[in-house]
């Protein structure tokens, strides 16, 4: 429990923040657990009461020691009394859940007052959790509902007009995702052209681009992951680098990297294959298998990439980790792979992350020397077999959990006879097999531009799931271009 700190909220020393962080984490877990329980159970249910009680006492304890207890949502981050709530892979789904709730209700902050009673808290949790059921669509609706319940010791603040969550509708977000994806490819192309001419590079635009991608991932991670289904094997390096960047950033967020670390990771992934500029096109574009000499040249590209980056840049403005990634993204976790190193034995974390994303995108893309691609599901299986050897075991599992059993972009056959494309994974671990899908055929397998359905939805009459995935399909077999379904969603 927090010790007594006689200071108003917002003025904590680093030491105090450290002391508080465990308590804040506990509060976050209890609050989300209470909300989820309230979504399922009635207020008088034992399960709900068991969640409510410790939450109430925790809030009371914090109020006693800190004067205020304010849960705040700003710029896609959650704060407690101005202290950022740290997100890692374990709390990610809770975070996503709570952020979605705040966004939907246009709430910026929830403040608990010292006179808060357990009853008030219970009512509030129920209203909050069942807002959709109660058809509370706006912030004002929500406030009114609270007033009607006589909740006086919980104050709400509406999202500030500046908050990015207010600026774009979900459709606008998708359009932005598409635009930024395109911009990324153009920018990387411009960068590579400058590299070829040995012109000095500046990274201001690249950093902004990465920050924008991170913003968009925070708004709609699934859609951004969906964009990585865009494959262009004729301009493979460009498209691939952007896909790897998006995958790496989603991955980094799951791991709990800080903002500045995410930007560095993004830049690392963005430039990871720049060494390929030094590889003759005849080798890059060779249709058949590379002979020994050609393979040796190809294996040079990481070192060439590193040298390029080192010599052409003023490294004050370029993340050093990106240099490591350029060199190490083909090195295995057990230090096999290439290139071999002289002294450097410790692989950079970002190299391990990028390697996983690099391979995943590569094997799910048709290549000039391979006229088929593996499905995402197959790719994950293949990679999991090499866990510990080629890939860091723990990192690969986080990645696999992020991608999901049915990754975004997977073509699935439903028990109803319909065929669909996975457009969003289910944030609930218990519902990993129940993503949101867009129907691409009807039950007779006639092609349609169908709706998006949530496979977690149940038929209230039978209490059975309405639809279920029975198998995954290879889109190439059926001439289906998965990326089109995402690009179409982003058309204005």
């Amino acid at each position: 429990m927090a010790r007594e700190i006689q200071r108003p909220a917002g003025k904590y020393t680093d030491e105090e923040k450290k002391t508080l962080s465990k308590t804040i984490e506990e509060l976050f877990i209890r609050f989300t657990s209470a909300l989820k329980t309230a979504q399922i159970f009635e207020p008088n249910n034992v399960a709900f009461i068991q969640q409510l009680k410790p939450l109430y006492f925790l809030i009371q304890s914090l109020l006693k020691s800190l004067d205020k207890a304010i849960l705040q949502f700003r710029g896609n981050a959650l704060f407690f009394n101005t202290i950022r709530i740290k997100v890692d892979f374990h709390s990610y789904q809770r975070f996503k859940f709570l952020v979605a709730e705040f966004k939907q209700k246009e709430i910026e902050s929830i403040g608990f007052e010292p006179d808060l009673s357990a009853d008030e808290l219970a009512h509030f949790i129920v209203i909050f959790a069942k807002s959709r059921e109660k058809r509370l669509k706006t912030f004002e609706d929500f406030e009114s509902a609270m007033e009607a319940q006589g909740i006086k010791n919980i104050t709400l603040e509406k999202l500030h007009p500046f908050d990015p969550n207010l600026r774009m509708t979900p459709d606008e977000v998708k359009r932005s995702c598409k635009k930024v994806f395109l911009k990324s490819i153009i920018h990387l192309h411009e960068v590579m052209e400058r590299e070829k001419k040995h012109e000095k590079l500046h990274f201001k635009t690249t950093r902004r681009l990465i920050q924008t991608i991170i913003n968009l991932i925070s708004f709609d991670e699934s859609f951004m992951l969906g964009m990585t289904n865009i494959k262009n094997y004729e301009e493979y390096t460009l498209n691939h680098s952007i896909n790897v960047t998006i995958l790496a950033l989603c991955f980094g967020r799951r791991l709990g990297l800080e903002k500045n670390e995410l930007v560095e990771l993004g830049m690392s992934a963005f430039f990871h294959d720049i060494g390929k500029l030094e590889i003759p096109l005849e080798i890059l574009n060779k249709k058949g298998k590379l002979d020994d000499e050609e393979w040796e040249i190809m294996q040079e590209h990481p070192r060439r990439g590193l040298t390029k980056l080192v010599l052409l840049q003023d490294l004050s403005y370029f993340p050093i980790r990106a240099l490591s990634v350029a060199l190490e993204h083909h090195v295995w976790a057990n230090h096999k792979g290439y290139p071999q190193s002289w002294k450097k034995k410790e692989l950079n974390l970002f190299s391990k992350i990028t390697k996983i994303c690099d391979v995943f995108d590569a094997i799910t893309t048709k290549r000039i020397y391979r006229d088929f691609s593996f499905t995402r599901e197959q790719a994950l299986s293949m990679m999991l077999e090499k866990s510990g050897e080629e890939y860091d075991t723990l990192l690969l599992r986080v990645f696999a959990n992020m991608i999901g059993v049915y990754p975004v972009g997977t073509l699935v056959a439903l028990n109803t006879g319909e065929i669909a494309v996975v457009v969003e994974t289910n944030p609930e671990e218990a519902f990993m097999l129940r993503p949101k899908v867009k129907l691409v055929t009807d039950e007779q397998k006639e092609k349609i531009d169908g709706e998006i359905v949530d496979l977690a939805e149940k038929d209230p009459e039978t209490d059975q799931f309405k639809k279920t995935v029975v198998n995954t399909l290879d889109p190439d077999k059926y001439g289906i271009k998965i990326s089109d379904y995402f690009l179409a969603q982003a058309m204005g």
Partner: protein
Amino acid sequence: MEEQKFDKPDAQAEPEEIPAVEKKVDPAELNKVKLLFKYFDTAFSTMKLYPPGNPSVEKTVGIFDEKLREFLEEYDEMRIGIGEFNFRYKNEIAFQDEEKKRSLPFFLFKDGMRQLSFFKGLDSKELQYFLNILKEAIDLPSEESDAVGLLWEKDFVNIRYYALDEFLDLKIGGGDKAKDFEVDPGKFKGGKIELTPEDIAEVKDQQDMLMFEQPKKGEGEGDREGMEGSDQRIPALTPEEAPEIEKLLEKGRRMTSEGELVDLLFEILYFEKSDGQFADVLKMLEKYFLEIVRSADFSKALGILKNVHELKENLRDKSEEKIMLLDKVEKNAKDESSKSLLKKLYLDDKVKDYDSFFQYLEILGPEVVTVVGIAWENAKDMVHKHKAADILREIGKKDVGALLYFAKGSNVSLSLEIMSMMEAIGDLKEVHHFEGFVDHPNKDIRLEVIRVLGKVASQDANKILVRFLADNDVEVSVFAAQNLKYLGDQEVFEFVLELAKDKEFIRRTRMEKSSMLNYLASAKHDEAYALFRSFLKKWSLFSAAKQNETRFCVVSALESHPSPQAREVLQEGTKVFGRSVRQACRVALSQMEHKAEPQQESKDDERT
């Protein structure tokens, strides 16, 4: 600042889309805001000119901070609209500056910022944090400067800003790739998908399985399906694994940029085939090496030098050019400016880790003896002193000349310390380095040198020792004579003999005469004995005391180095003028015989 070209972004991106603010503004309020903007601008200008901590910066920032908080106490929020060259408050222009290089509005506008709000509750710390970020952006070259980008990475409680999402449109062209991203939704309709027989079979199997596995009504959501499915296909992560991931992240964070960069540069250098690129990368490494030394981080500097050395060994016989370049790096690490830097860092107590610092000096070798000397003379404690002494000793083993040359110019205590090391250094063959000390102004040092030369006991050492016989200080000349050892070197013997033959010889002190005559006696040379005879026989009224003293020294010298000739001379001495001299000779002879007898007795004992 670089010339910025701004196409107008889409109208929908303009701040007018932000929820409407009040159109009317109270004149008094507006005046306050105008003043506040002036304070803001002044603070910004001083920050551009002066470093943090400068009194002008602290004053102007302090004023802005105070006035801003006063304003926020009254009005809760100050929302600033940012135009290209102006600030607006409630749609009124409240500040204008059209000079790009100076303009605060332009500085923010160019990076896409369109609105900035400060809120009640803002404290000095948070405002300072915000201004520090602006300062960071100011200090970057214009092509890298990005205030919005820097702000994005930070969390502010009471400061918000709005920046264009379309900023990137201004920086990245459209290109003709857009058409690759257009999709005709019509293609989603029409036609049918015919599953392959294999897929049909698989779907049917799965559908059948599903029929058997449907959860009963009322069962918890996903309690059978979700968990089992995910376990089989993707191993779920457990809460216990969260700390493991955190450890992974922390480990990654502990790798410093600098250290990693240096490792990477060595990776390039080791494998690089092109001499040109090798040179370029090595230049970069050297630049970082110098920065590391300047920052007094010697554990890293040491690591780099060791790697340079190792790289040289690896590249030997492979590339002369590369070896030369690496040699130059090593050489530069010990040049005059590097040495000055090392001295300064030590004297200013800036060194981070003294163990590494001394190891670094050791690896640099004899060329940095002056630095080691400084460290010894100014040692923080005895540990440092001993470490410095150890290095001096090692330097001496590699290059005693360099060490002695240094000692000659050093202060007394250091020179003495170095002299005392000479024995530990071992077999000193190159004694000529000690020549420079013959006329050293400090007596203690001269004495110490004599002591060392005496221990060396070589003909070369003797040649230097004899030069000390002419020393102005008697103690020195005596000590030199005492340390002379006859080793058959005729030149030295004759030199001493000539000194002894000099008519002023008798005027030397007793100790001087005694030691020199001792040396001559030890030579057991005919010329020495001739001289001894002449001393014993010589008598005059003038300087009688000195003459007698000399005769007694002769007797003593002969007694110390017995030989038949010595006995003969003493025998003759028993008949010379002067009873005390005669008596001394008899005693000496008796002592000589006495010393010879125990040998005879022991021989007799053996017989019996």
